[in-house]
């Protein structure tokens, strides 16, 4: 009721149809307000879209055209060569096999990290929500507060731990690091979700003789698929976009895509090929962008929760 009443004036003004005014307010006031409102929003939206546009346009031009032309002008002659070069033969130091190596490294880092971190955190959140033991909350609070400790403080001790285990510099090591640092926010996410599931369901399952894992797998898991999707979105974008852990815990041949991209673009030797650089930049941003555009509102939910990660 309240919604309809407040919605109709602006919607009507927008349509500018001939239907009679429903309120006493003169229409031109509303439409001037709308011109300001939409004008501002469109200008800001163009500003936000501009870098994406420039990236795409630049990546489709040849180098001569870039030198002569304007970065905002559309390509006169579309070429996909920069994309091919960025993917298959751009150089970082002595390696000239393009971004593809970084891409596959990132895949091999992201997939297990996402699975492992969500598996750990969901069971953890479940234990915290339904099977609390003495002291569990203390650890949980440490975990949440720990999420705010700058990573720089913990980088080196983890290097030592990984070196002692013998997995420093390997993808396994990086997967573990991602699982550790994904834990606070994911555990919070799952704990809050599982807490909101009615206690009666849990009790009924207990009466029927289901145990810790039985309830988790047969009741909690099927009931909480949306939160799993949110967690997956959060982790895929977060881990794919990571740079710091990639640069600290891997070696050149196992560098994730972001690190390799930075090395390609910011390498000091050779002629700068801006079109290849931009193609490489888009390629690196493509995975999170696709996740973002496909997931829509769930992404918003994910970042609203994940924002705490900082």
């Amino acid at each position: 009721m309240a919604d309809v009443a407040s919605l109709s004036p602006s919607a009507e003004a927008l349509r500018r149809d001939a239907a009679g005014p429903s309120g006493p307010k003169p229409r031109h006031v509303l439409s001037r307000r709308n011109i300001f409102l939409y004008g501002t929003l469109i200008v800001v939206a163009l500003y936000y879209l501009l870098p994406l546009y420039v990236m795409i346009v630049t990546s489709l031009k040849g180098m001569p055209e870039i030198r002569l032309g304007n970065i905002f002008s559309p390509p006169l002659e579309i070429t996909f060569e920069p994309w091919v070069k960025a993917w298959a033969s751009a150089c970082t130091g002595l390696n000239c096999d393009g971004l593809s190596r970084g891409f596959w490294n990132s895949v091999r880092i992201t997939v297990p990290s996402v699975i492992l971190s969500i598996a750990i955190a969901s069971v953890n959140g479940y234990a915290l929500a339904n099977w609390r033991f003495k002291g569990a909350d203390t650890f949980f609070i440490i975990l949440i507060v720990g999420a705010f400790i700058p990573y720089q403080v913990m980088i080196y001790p983890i290097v030592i731990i990984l070196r002692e285990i013998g997995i420093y510099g390997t993808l396994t090591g990086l997967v573990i690091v991602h699982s550790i640092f994904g834990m606070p926010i994911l555990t919070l996410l799952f704990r809050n979700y599982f807490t909101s599931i009615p206690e009666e369901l849990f009790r009924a399952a207990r009466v029927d003789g289901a145990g810790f894992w039985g309830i988790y797998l047969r009741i909690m898991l099927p009931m909480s698929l949306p939160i799993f999707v949110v967690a997956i979105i959060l982790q895929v974008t977060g881990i794919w976009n990571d740079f710091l852990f990639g640069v600290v815990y891997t070696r050149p041949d196992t560098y994730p895509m972001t690190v390799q991209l930075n090395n390609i673009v910011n390498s000091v030797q050779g002629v700068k090929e801006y079109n290849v650089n931009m193609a490489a930049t888009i390629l690196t941003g493509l995975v999170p962008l696709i996740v973002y555009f496909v997931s829509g509102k769930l992404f918003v939910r994910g970042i609203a929760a994940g924002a705490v990660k900082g």
Partner: protein
Amino acid sequence: MSNSERPSKLFRNLNAKVASIPMVLTALVVFVGGTAWTVLYSFTNSKLLPRLNFVGLDQYHRLWSTSRWLVSIENLLIYGAISLVFSLVIGFLLAALLDQKIRFEDTFRTIFLYPFALSFIVTGLVWQWLLNPDFGVQRVVRDLGWTSFSFDPLYNSSIVIYGISIAALWQGTGLIMCLMLAGLRGIDEDIWKAARVDGIPTWKTYLFIVIPMMRPVFITTLVIIAAGIVKVYDLVVAQTSGGPGIASEVPAKYVYDYMFFAQNLGQGFAASTMMLLSVVIVIVPWAYLEFGGKKRG
């Protein structure tokens, strides 16, 4: 597993405890242990390898007399002030605009938020290209006729940190907008009606009624922005690598460079401990209010 027949208290706790082992290890070994370790070793003269050779506050004295660190701190303060003020103001304004029951709200929100899906590396490299003096905005404006126009923030050491802030704001304001929008949507419609009935202008309603009501949202947002500011690293690496010279260095980069390039671990530990200290000052009061008071089940 074995408790499905006889749910004894011991076994139930055992399962939950087994499931919590990763959390306990992370909390105790990495978060508490790692932090304590770094703080402890910041009082040593560790160089290439960590050694327990205590030298008191020497590393901190050296840290605060290193010009690179002082530049880093200054940059962090400027960058932080810009991020805080502008992302709050722009984020709130955009959220208020989107909250006017407009059409295509989802489209606009999608556009404002997409940069947040991109990594800082991608963000930094795009803006490095846009701000490139030979090809980017400066060149375009000069080609239009203003031949003396100058806009090269990434190559001018006195304004380079502002150039980095432009990219950071482009990437991050969408998130703030989303949080603010959620806050605005949480305000009861009746408040607006009451204000309208009383004839209070819209801007006054926002300033004196809505914003004070959104205090919790603002506090959370503030903490999120603050935590992000201290961590700024990838963006600088991608955009300028700390240059020109040391003009755009930031503390996180100082730490990394001293730990992994300069083979001066003690300096790195001392610098990271200072970063921790700055976060503690911001976070602890907030965390206490948020988690310390209430223990819900």
